[in-house]
């Protein structure tokens, strides 16, 4: 019986060691691939940073009307963002190449699932970028119009609209990424419904008198200003 136990142990040890010996070149290849890709990424980042600095990329982007990109970039530098994007993409490609060294079937399955997920990631990124631009544009418009209409709560309105649009964009992006879609949908529905209900209650019931007094006061002031105004702008 001890012979059988010894043989089984020997066989399992051989199996584990041979498995490790089979994995070792792959692991080494992964490490080498990542290190090489990191080196290439570092060199590419240096070249790209110098090139973008040489052509005044940050300023050009502003002149082309993409100033919002700077606000979203690390240290408000779009060149830095492009450089980081390129270098991390090279490292990612190196990592995928390293994985291929383990098992061709595994790597092809991984590559397939990665590439099939990529359109969702790109759509989500696009949604967040467009949402951010639309949110900022609307917020600015409402802030300027609110100030020109002499509304004391212009900033509050502007921030509210900005975050509503951003929340909508993020919810749509998460839906595309298939991350907690049910929870996100439910949370978004509750949040939006809650806001609308709160506004309806404020205007319709709870603050009816307050809102009507405020509206009356505002229209009275505008009418009085119109009547007494001696200024002619044109």
């Amino acid at each position, binding site marked *: 019986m001890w012979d059988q136990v010894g043989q089984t142990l020997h066989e399992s040890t051989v199996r584990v060691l041979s498995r490790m010996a089979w994995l070792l070149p792959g692991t080494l290849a992964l490490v080498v691939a990542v290190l090489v890709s990191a080196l290439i990424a570092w060199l590419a980042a240096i070249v790209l940073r110098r090139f973008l600095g040489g052509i005044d990329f940050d300023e050009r982007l502003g002149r082309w009307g993409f100033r919002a990109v700077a606000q979203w970039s690390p240290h408000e530098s779009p060149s830095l963002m492009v450089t980081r994007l390129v270098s991390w993409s090279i490292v990612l490609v190196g990592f995928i190449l390293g994985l291929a060294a383990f098992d061709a079937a595994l790597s092809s399955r991984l590559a397939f699932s990665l590439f099939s997920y990529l359109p969702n990631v790109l759509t989500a990124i696009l949604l967040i970028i467009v949402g951010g631009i639309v949110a900022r544009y609307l917020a600015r418009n409402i802030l300027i*119009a609110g100030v020109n209409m*002499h509304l004391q709560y212009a900033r509050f309105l502007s921030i509210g609209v900005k975050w509503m649009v951003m929340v909508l964009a993020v919810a749509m992006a998460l839906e595309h990424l298939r991350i907690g879609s049910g929870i996100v949908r439910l949370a978004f529905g509750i949040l939006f419904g809650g806001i609308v209900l709160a506004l309806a209650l404020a205007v319709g019931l709870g603050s009816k008198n307050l809102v009507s007094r405020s509206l009356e006061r505002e229209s009275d002031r505008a009418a009085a200003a119109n009547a007494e105004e*001696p200024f002619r*702008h*044109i």
Partner: protein
Amino acid sequence: MADPVGMEQIDKADVAIGLVPASHDGGEISAAVERILQSSPPTKTVLIHPPYAANGQKPLSPNSQWHLLAHAQLAQDRATLAQSLGASYQAVFDLALKLGVRACAVIASDLASVTADWAPLLLEPATDNGFDLVAPCYARHRFEGLINRAIVYPLVRALYGKQIRNPLGPDVGVSSGLMRRMTIASRSRMHPLVSLAAEAITGGMKVCQSHLGARGYPPPDWADVSSLLAQVLSPLFLDVERYAPYWQRERESQPVQEFGRHRYVEGPESAVEVTRLIETFQLGARNLPEIWGLILPPSTLVELQRLARQDRAGFRLPDETWARVVYDFALAHRLRPISRDQILRAMTPIYLGWVASYALEVESASPEAVEARLEKLCLAYESARPYLVSRWRWPDRFNP
């Protein structure tokens, strides 16, 4: 577009007058047409007017030099004032050129204030003295035409070098040469009214102004100041961009020849209420510093924030600061750090701040003192012109 009804009966004409009324009231248009027809022009004159029901209007005598032509496109829309005026002026110019006239007058003020001598005052300098542009001068009290006083007149004077009191009319006399220029230029999105003065001056044409007397206005609309400002300034700032090579050359402003009699109108005698104007400026200074920061340099922002802390007694916006603010907004309109409409509307609180400061300064001033005050503002614009030239050429490097 098809020719208006009656065009085929008029072969050629010597001069034309176009009516572009703000009102759609047929009775008012009819009364204005009757007043204009009271004068007896020496040569064949066509009066182009919008269609109206001519109830009770006397028919023209067969020997009259007058010919009437109805054109459906002549109208003002307050929601899109600049576009509707531009389209109407272009329609009048096209028709006048088809008729082969020597000169044309366009009248767009409130028709109730139009008198019989407006047409000769706008046409004769062009037909008899060879002027290409006859700009109007109105008898106004100190709180009328404020956008013109604050921005348009000083800016046009400082940049193009001619002291035209109302560069944007709207009542003007134009020679056939200038009309032809404007018709060709309209293909490059030039505004047929706003660009008239700039095009005439930069083209080396002869410019003068006629004193027309008092002018009627539509009732004020508080909520509309920002859209009014945007509609007036957008084509004006486009011209600043278009004619940049011209105004970057050094030159001093010159007076232009004047026709008619200079008149003043007394303003309101009671103290003016500027609290709301100051409050709007202060609200803007509290809420819009991020947006103003994209347009104005830090030194101007600091001055505006300092002004926002002043009470009514100390509320004065220095002319130099105001001139720089206008120049910075013109530059921002070119660079577009944000949308152009947002840039122009964000200027409203600062403009209202200027109105409050000006109103407090001239509240009990005589007409002569108001003129002197306006002259001081114009000189501030002229002395700040090198600032605009530097900012225009090096917007990133020259940012005081």
